[in-house]
């Protein structure tokens, strides 16, 4: 059991903290994944946990801090990245390196040989570390962390930069460690890995803890299965799919990303209507983590993009024929003051953007992405909408809440066919000032 409370690290006074008030529990028998991008504070968190860096907050390993552990190697194995990719001195042989560390840990030398067997390095044990590949180095480092037969493991990005085979081996090995009752804290950058590997996912973003979720909830809220469809007649298929209640998004030149309907059903539908398909594949799309919110009026909150959600039945607010239908999404004000009326409350801002700086840790339970509570909390009055639909007869594509502004989920920017015309970006304004129609 590892209890982490209030880990905070400020590298320089006046700078934003590299880590702010991180707190979670890692339970035995479970894999706790720290998920975050580069610079989110994952490594800092691990280094703070073993007190390699000075910082605030306390980490208890079975009720003791790391320094107070009598035999730290027997309690906790640590795999931290060093500045060099090698596990040890390049001139040392693998066996002698592990035996040397076994001497420092205080376990017999045959334990080193055992671990070489377990990490599939026994065949190369008498070669120098200089000739080892990154995957072998990582396995050596894991073997070194396991020397004292610890009850818990802290691993910093153990599978980063490894081949898929090595990655798979790492996952199964660590999974078996957790099944045997070990406590495991792993960091990763990939949400897919976190979902596949973890039992509990703690999401970090720029030092702030965004969420602490069981993996089922994480999968539901942060990962989103969809079907990639590609073919020459996508507009027609999109119409059919929308008619069947699916959520359709344009994906590249001649592709659709469909969610809410199975792959086989899409194939059958296309077959029945004689639509040619070139590709039909399942995939998992990552949803962006909810961003840490800046306070209102800081000058930057106006840049947050929010995509709204329309429904067919929704009343179209004030159709304007003179407004250019294919307005460039990034600059909606190019055609004059377009903003008029706030969207009805159905429209979801997936980012609770205009809230003041609520401590995120408290919100993490309630304000999860895509959840109704968090969406309902967001004030919708500040989201002016571009009334884009020209006629009511035109069918609109429903944009589901999972489809948010990610790098690969951008709406198309030019030559908008009528089908997709309502996909617009809206800007949230710092001040809710609906500009009057001229």
């Amino acid at each position: 059991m590892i209890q982490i409370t209030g880990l905070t690290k400020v590298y320089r006074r006046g700078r934003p903290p590299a880590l702010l008030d991180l707190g979670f529990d890692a339970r035995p028998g479970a894999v706790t994944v720290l998920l975050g991008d580069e610079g989110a504070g994952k490594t800092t968190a691990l280094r703070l946990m073993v007190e390699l860096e000075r910082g605030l907050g306390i980490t208890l390993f079975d009720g003791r801090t790391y320094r107070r552990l009598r035999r730290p190697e027997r309690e906790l194995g640590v795999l931290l990245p060093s500045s060099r990719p090698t596990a040890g001195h390049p001139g040392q042989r693998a066996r002698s390196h592990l035996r040397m560390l076994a001497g420092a840990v205080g376990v017999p030398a045959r334990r080193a040989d055992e671990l070489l067997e377990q990490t599939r390095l026994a065949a190369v044990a008498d070669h120098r570390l200089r000739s080892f590949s990154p995957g072998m180095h990582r396995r050596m480092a894991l073997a070194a962390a396991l020397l004292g037969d610890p009850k818990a493991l802290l691993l910093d990005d153990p599978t980063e930069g490894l081949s898929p085979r090595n990655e798979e081996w790492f996952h199964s090995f660590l999974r078996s460690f957790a099944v045997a009752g070990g406590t495991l804290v792993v960091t990763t950058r990939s949400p897919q890995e976190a979902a596949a590997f973890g039992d509990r996912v703690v999401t970090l973003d720029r030092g702030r803890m965004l969420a602490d979720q069981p993996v089922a909830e994480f999968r539901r809220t942060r990962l989103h299965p969809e079907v990639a469809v590609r073919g020459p007649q996508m507009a027609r298929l999109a119409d059919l799919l929308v008619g069947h209640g699916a959520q359709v998004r344009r994906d590249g030149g001649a592709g659709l990303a469909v969610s809410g309907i199975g792959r086989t059903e899409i194939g059958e539908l296309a077959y029945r209507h004689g639509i040619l398909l070139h590709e039909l594949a399942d995939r998992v799309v990552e949803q962006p983590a909810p961003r840490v919110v800046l306070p209102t009026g800081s000058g930057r909150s106006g840049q947050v993009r929010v995509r709204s959600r329309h429904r067919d039945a929704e009343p179209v607010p004030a159709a304007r024929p003179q407004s250019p239908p294919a307005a460039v999404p990034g600059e909606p004000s190019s055609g004059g003051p377009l903003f008029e009326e706030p969207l009805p409350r159905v429209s979801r801002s997936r980012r609770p953007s205009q809230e003041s700086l609520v401590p995120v840790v408290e919100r993490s339970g309630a304000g999860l992405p895509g959840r109704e509570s968090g969406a309902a909390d967001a004030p919708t009055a500040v989201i002016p909408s571009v009334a884009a639909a020209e006629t009511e007869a035109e069918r609109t594509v429903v944009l589901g809440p999972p489809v948010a502004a990610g790098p690969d989920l951008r709406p198309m920017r030019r030559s908008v066919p009528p089908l997709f015309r309502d996909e617009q970006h809206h800007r949230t304004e710092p001040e809710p000032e609906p500009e009057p129609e001229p």
Partner: protein
Amino acid sequence: MRVLAYELRRLRGLRSTWLILAAVLLCDAAVAAVLARQVPDGALAVPTAVRSVAAAVPLLPLPIAALGAGALGALSYGHEVRHPGLAASRVAFGRRVGLLVGKSVVIGAVSAALAVVTLLLDAVAVRLALPSSVDPAPAFRPDVFGSDPAGLLAAGAPGRPLLAFALLVVVGGWAGLLTTSLVRSAAAGLLVLCALPVLLEPAVGMILRQAGRYWPAWVRELLPFQYGLDWVRGEPGAAAVGPDPVLFAALAAPVLVLLVAAVLAQVRRRAL
């Protein structure tokens, strides 16, 4: 004990250890042989014999064996900095100091062994390389080695400078370890180690001079800059006889300063 096992296995597992030891022995034997070839004719004086056996060349700041021991110490600490095997378990101050003490013990033992082996090997080399015109009897008397230890350590006998040589080698190993612990790089630590005698020998000599003393002959034979200093200051007075508290204080002060600096540096750090 765990630290000693760790350090012994570390030293044994690295090729550089064996390379350094072999290089030191080879160089020492070669230098000793060359020095022996240049011994003037006649009876072999004890100081000349000692200088040949210790292979003290005035070009080098320290005897070769002391430099080799210093390199071992520097690499020992540099290994922990460059390739920390268990970085997380070295966070606590006590563990780091414990590791440093363990490393000192092992490096000291290895250095002492290196000094003894060097002396034996060099004695053989000198004996073999002596020109036929030199009479080795005064220095290589069989009764010197067979007689009682007190006689061996007497003022004119070769025992005392040879003991000083072994001590210098051990201190060189420790100093390499400690200077590297200050600068955290094996190469820089070795350079500082080479600079230390250059700074310390004149400084300590000056302090001794203030106290009305001079380097005793058995120390002077091993120190590199004796010739220059003697030339500048003229002939030194009578060599100090017997153990001298001022002399030992002057010799121990730099060592103590280095030790305190190393421990203070560890207090400030989180890793070795």
